[in-house]
């Protein structure tokens, strides 16, 4: 319900702006060459896509069909003297959830009021940080469900309803993204992906949909994310700050019947630049779980340090390899263990490695890629093979998979073992 309200607000903003703009454009007609600007120029693009996939094994709690949908994305843009308007939305016919849906991806106004300022207001996709499909200081909403069922990678980023102000200076640049009402991840809630339920001590899915109590007040439950960055000889250095909430449920209420999003503050830094023949990156973040400073509350996530180092290089012509090492380190492990009610304790740290291999063939019209997460501490693996062939400039065919396995039923990727799936897709872009 809240989503549809936000969509309505965005639509209203967009169309109001559109009207204002039409008037503004009309007014400036005679100053510019009159013929082309007399009507509001709207660029229309997008794609139509069919995508279907199945689980490779039976999942007691979910349908065999992992994805079955057709999708029409409309991408409308209008460029005016004082602002750019953008509207991008997906109409979806979803056979897994047996419903039609509309996902408003973007509806915003961008303007460059001065030489040193950019402003973007409305629904938008926000991204920063240096990781490749691993995020520390990017606390903008993610859509893990889309990621795991085999939608295009662009859907991993869920939209934010936010205002972003960017200031550009000689010494450094500053981005401030303010989200007046908390935008959580589209997290795994059991609807389409089965998961490990610690309350039930077993795998669960549609029989145990995660219910949440979400911070929901406009302006009262807001998020703010800042980035201060500069380049020194093309080494990109950045400092980050975030004040908001755990983006996916980070705890439970005391009755243990609702997942909650406890307060979270994050402070971090990153660096990225050329090392030898490739690109190296490092990122670090301190996750301060503000509702459980001492780490004693077993129902709320512990504070953490998170570290990431990565390196990407072209290892042969049209063949790129990227590796990353990532660590999550619990800061109050002692109090956590002492207060754990029952069941096995998790490890103090979680180690994760990633490997990306991307190969282009057939005049670069065929792309074969494999992205693999492997955790030596959790002993689990998530592989994302993908082959994409561009039949023509407009038509692309795709086949891929999401493969999960692990030694334990409750680890980060291991819990999804029954969700292993393959998918096929065809997309016509215009």
């Amino acid at each position, binding site marked *: 319900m809240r989503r549809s309200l936000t969509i309505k607000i965005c639509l209203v903003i967009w169309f109001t702006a559109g009207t204002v703009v039409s008037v503004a454009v009309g007014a400036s007609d005679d100053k510019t060459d009159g013929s082309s600007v007399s009507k509001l120029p709207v660029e229309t693009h997008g794609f139509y896509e069919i995508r279907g996939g199945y689980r490779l094994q039976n999942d007691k709690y979910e349908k065999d069909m992992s994805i079955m949908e057709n999708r029409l994305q409309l991408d409308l843009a209008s*460029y005016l003297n004082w602002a750019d308007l953008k509207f991008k939305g997906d109409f979806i016919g979803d056979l897994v959830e047996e419903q039609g849906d509309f996902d408003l991806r973007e509806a915003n106004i961008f303007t460059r009021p001065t030489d040193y300022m950019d402003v973007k207001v409305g629904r938008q996709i926000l991204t920063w940080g240096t990781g490749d499909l691993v995020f520390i200081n990017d606390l903008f909403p993610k859509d893990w469900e889309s990621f795991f069922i085999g939608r295009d990678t662009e859907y991993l980023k869920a939209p934010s309803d936010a205002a972003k102000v960017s200031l*550009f200076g000689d010494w450094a640049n500053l981005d401030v993204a303010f989200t007046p009402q908390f935008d959580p991840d589209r997290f795994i809630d059991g609807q389409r992906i089965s998961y490990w339920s610690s309350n039930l001590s077993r795998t669960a899915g549609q029989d145990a949909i995660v219910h949440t109590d979400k911070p929901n007040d406009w302006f009262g439950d807001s998020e703010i994310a800042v980035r201060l960055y500069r*380049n020194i000889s093309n080494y990109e250095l950045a400092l980050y700050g975030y004040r908001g909430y755990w983006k996916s449920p980070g705890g439970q209420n005391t009755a243990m019947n609702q997942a909650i999003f406890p307060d979270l503050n994050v402070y971090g830094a990153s660096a990225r630049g050329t090392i030898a023949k490739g690109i190296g990156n490092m990122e670090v973040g301190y996750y301060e779980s503000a509702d459980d400073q001492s780490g004693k509350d077993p129902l709320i996530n512990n504070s953490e340090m998170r570290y990431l180092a990565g390196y990407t290089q072209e290892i042969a*012509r*049209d063949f790129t390899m990227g590796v990353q090492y990532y660590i999550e380190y619990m800061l109050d492990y002692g109090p956590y263990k002492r207060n754990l009610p029952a069941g096995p304790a998790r490890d103090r740290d979680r180690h994760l490695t990633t490997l990306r291999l991307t190969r282009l063939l057939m*005049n*670069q019209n065929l792309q074969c890629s494999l992205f693999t997460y492997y955790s030596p501490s959790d002993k689990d693996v998530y592989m994302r093979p993908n082959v*994409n062939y561009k039949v023509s400039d407009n038509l692309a065919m795709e086949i891929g998979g999401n493969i999960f396995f692990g030694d334990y039923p409750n680890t980060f990727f291991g819990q999804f073992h029954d969700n292993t799936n393959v998918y096929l897709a065809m997309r016509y872009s215009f």
Partner: protein
Amino acid sequence: MKQIWKIASIVCFSLPVFAADKPDAAPQIPDVQTIVSKANIVAYYQGDDGKAKVKMVITDKQGQKRERQFNILRKDVSDGGDQKYFVYFELPADVRKMAYMVHKYTDPQKDDDRWLYLPALSLVKRIAAGDKRTSFVGSDFLYEDVSGRSLEEDMHELIQTTDQFFVVKNVPKRPDTVEFSYFNVSIDRKTYVPMKMEFFDKENKLYRAIESTKVEKIQDFYTVVKSVVTNLKTGGKTEMEFSNVQYNMNLGDIFTERYLQRPPKEAMR
């Protein structure tokens, strides 16, 4: 979508592809170093900066056509030296709004810095340096064809002087790094525009040619507005057409992440 970024990491587009200065009326024949340096300058460093809309039509052996369209912005850090570029894609539809930024260095020890902006993810990615003999955006042009091959890489010899052309033979100093054994360039004697490049394989057989098919004088700079590359080995060809060319726009320090994500209005429209 993802292919183009990799592909296009190749870019280091030289805006005034083959533009030339004032015609040289000197009757005597200059030495080969002078000829190649002058041709290099007029081909890749005309004006202090510039822009163009580029359209490519790639035709494969079967006759299937693919199109690429993008806007490029270029600024020279120094004449004959480092350069900075933007490439803003318009076509095909799946790469629309994707953009590239290149900081190109002429120092052979230093790899170019490259960034890619992916609009759907709102992501600015850093791209690892790539093989310069890789196809540019899936076309028959190579990265080096459009960014310029460093003069230091080859030994140059003037093998023929006709009424119209200086013909220079270029033999690579490190033959193992390239797929050709040598290439010949026919340089217009008046304008110093390279009109034809012919590449010979390890068996000394012609297998690849780039021709300038239309040259126009734009703001006093001779500019190749149409060129075509044919690959005799693969049977493919790519035609490239420049329009909306403009030089000396007095571009400021815009080659940053800010303008990678959204082009400067005055420069692109």
